[in-house]
């Protein structure tokens, strides 16, 4: 019997996410996956920040679509969303950033992180047309659990775009089902609660990651609450990728005055660069 994945790979070129994980595995290293909110503080700066992240060693980047009701996010990303939405950033603008950043030389896989409603309003067909043509390789939709993702998963498979699922320490017996359907990688939530910097992770984190590892045929990445080189290192042996979101968004928030000042913009970007390259080690 033909493996349906083989058929897809004939139609679509190899997904860039798989390519990067393949290269990293060969060299024995872990992917650093930063998250930033698109349009915080504006679209042009987002493109510059993405370039900066790539120069600082990002292996792939999560592009966050700002949303009015970000249920899974803590205060830092909530504030970033509010800043972005003040100038009516839409999901279409966010997707365009991928193309602009790629044209500006950011040659890494882009993963769009968006809540479900903006996608639904755009219409699933138009959404997939757009993300395919603008060079998005993966999707994370935090409020679309497996019970609700059938249509989305089908369309993503057809388009050769990875729908990356989240698993949480509370997922228990759901881990197997989720991991079995995962594409790209499995996003392991390090702790209960929302996104945001924290000093401690869920008590059973090692066993949790191990259980996901055993259930998944794709790489696993860990995120939520990671902000230091030490924390990145802690997970390097246990996961194929480490996602850093709020800590970078908070760094951007810190340097907003610099980014807004044409004379000191480069300095602001340099701060972000230094922070991310220190995470990479």
């Amino acid at each position, binding site marked *: 019997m033909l493996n349906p994945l083989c058929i897809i790979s004939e139609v679509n070129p190899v997904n860039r996410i798989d390519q990067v994980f393949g290269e990293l595995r060969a060299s024995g290293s872990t992917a650093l996956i930063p998250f930033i909110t698109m349009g915080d503080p504006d679209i042009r700066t987002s493109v510059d920040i993405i370039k900066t992240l790539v120069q600082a060693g990002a292996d792939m980047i999560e592009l966050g679509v700002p949303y*009015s009701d970000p*249920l899974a996010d803590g205060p830092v990303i909530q504030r970033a969303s509010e800043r972005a939405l003040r100038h009516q950033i839409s999901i279409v603008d966010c997707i365009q950033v991928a193309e602009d950043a790629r044209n500006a030389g950011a040659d890494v896989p882009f993963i769009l992180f968006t809540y479900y*409603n903006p996608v639904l309003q755009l219409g699933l067909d138009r959404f997939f047309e757009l993300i395919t043509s603008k060079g998005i390789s993966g999707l994370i939709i935090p409020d679309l659990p497996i019970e609700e993702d059938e249509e989305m998963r089908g369309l993503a498979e057809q388009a050769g775009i990875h729908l990356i699922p989240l698993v949480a320490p509370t997922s228990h017996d759901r881990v197997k089902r989720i991991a079995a359907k995962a594409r790209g990688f499995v996003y392991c939530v390090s702790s209960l609660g929302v996104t945001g910097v924290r000093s401690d992770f869920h008590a059973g984190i090692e066993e949790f990651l191990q259980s996901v590892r055993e259930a998944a045929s794709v790489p696993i990445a860990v995120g939520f609450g990671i902000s230091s080189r030490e924390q990145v290192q802690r997970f390097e042996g246990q996961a194929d990728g480490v996602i850093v979101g709020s800590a970078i968004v908070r760094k951007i928030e810190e340097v907003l005055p610099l980014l807004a000042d044409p004379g000191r913009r480069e300095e602001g970007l340099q701060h972000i660069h230094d922070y991310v390259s220190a995470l990479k080690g």
Partner: protein
Amino acid sequence: MNQVPDQQGRFGKFGGRYVPETLMNALIELEEAYQHYSKDPDFIAEVRYLLNKYSGRPTSLYYAERLTKHLGGAKIYLKREDLNHTGAHKINNTIGQGVLAKRMGKTKIIAETGAGQHGVASATVAALLGMECKVFMGEEDTKRQQLNVFRMNLLGAEVVPVTSGTRTLKDACNETLRYWVSHVDDTYYILGSVTGPHPYPMMVRDFQRIIGDETREQIVEAEGKLPDYVVAAVGGGSNAIGIFYPFVGDESVRLLGVEAAGRGVETLEHAATMTKGKHGVFQGSLSYVLQDEYGQVQPAHSISAGLDYPGIGPEHAYLKDTGRAEYVPITDAEALEALQLLSRTEGIIPALESAHAVAQTMKLAPTLSSDKVVVISLSGRGDKDVESIMHYLGGEPGESH
């Protein structure tokens, strides 16, 4: 009509569970516990005992004779949910969920609140059952409703001001869900309306259907027939679904949901989710949502804090799209006028929410003949609103006769 929701929590296409994975097992656990206890005679008896002896059910179905005469048309009955303990229908649900939380072994409850009615009802039940209680309330609302904040404190609850987003009910809901994500092990979330992810819309409906079950029995006793119209205000829609649900199978009974038009549906300041909203996913379920073309949820406005919400329960979306219920908007000004009319004709000061249903009846009743019967869900009393009504009407204390 089919039995709704289905196993995935779908009312037709509406409903579902659009929540972060972290919450999925908590929702499944809740659904299983509810399925189990809702068939358990001890559980049913305890809830029934508290509804009767503690909250004072059944509430009366009162023939509003002077209002009927004043409007000159259909006979108007008021289902007096305002006579419940804590002054509104909200307690029907908090008693049910409070007892369920206890059976599930949870020691802490959390709740969201807008004006404070559901917060007070949750704090009340927490005190009654000896549980810890945190109520999340938008910072704006804590300022507008200081008395309710104090009331909750008196009842032993902690009120957590929410400073994110619009700092009102919508963001209080978000924050309660976020807190729950971090504390799912020992904390029970008492959601206050027929909104949110499955099983809440179904469970809250089941706890509120007592309004309609009683109404059905009472109206048959009083009139020897079913009503021609049932009219109820809808924000999230819990009192409306509660009174509608037992009549859904009776094609002759027209169901009329009244939503808040605020300053008018042609302005940007309204909460007319059905009239102006579109299908969308918001706070855990697919329903109608006030939103912009790119799916960002829009702030709502209503004089009534309980209707000031950009979403609506998924079962209402289902009733609307199947044509079984109709939804109409009533403005702030119309609601205020209705509130005064009911106060003067019947000596009943309704909550601003319920005044919307009265206002729609003011339009409807005169168009009907006197052999027709309209039942209004008088979901709450107006005591909580007296101060703000005074400001809206521009009156000063002591000025009136």
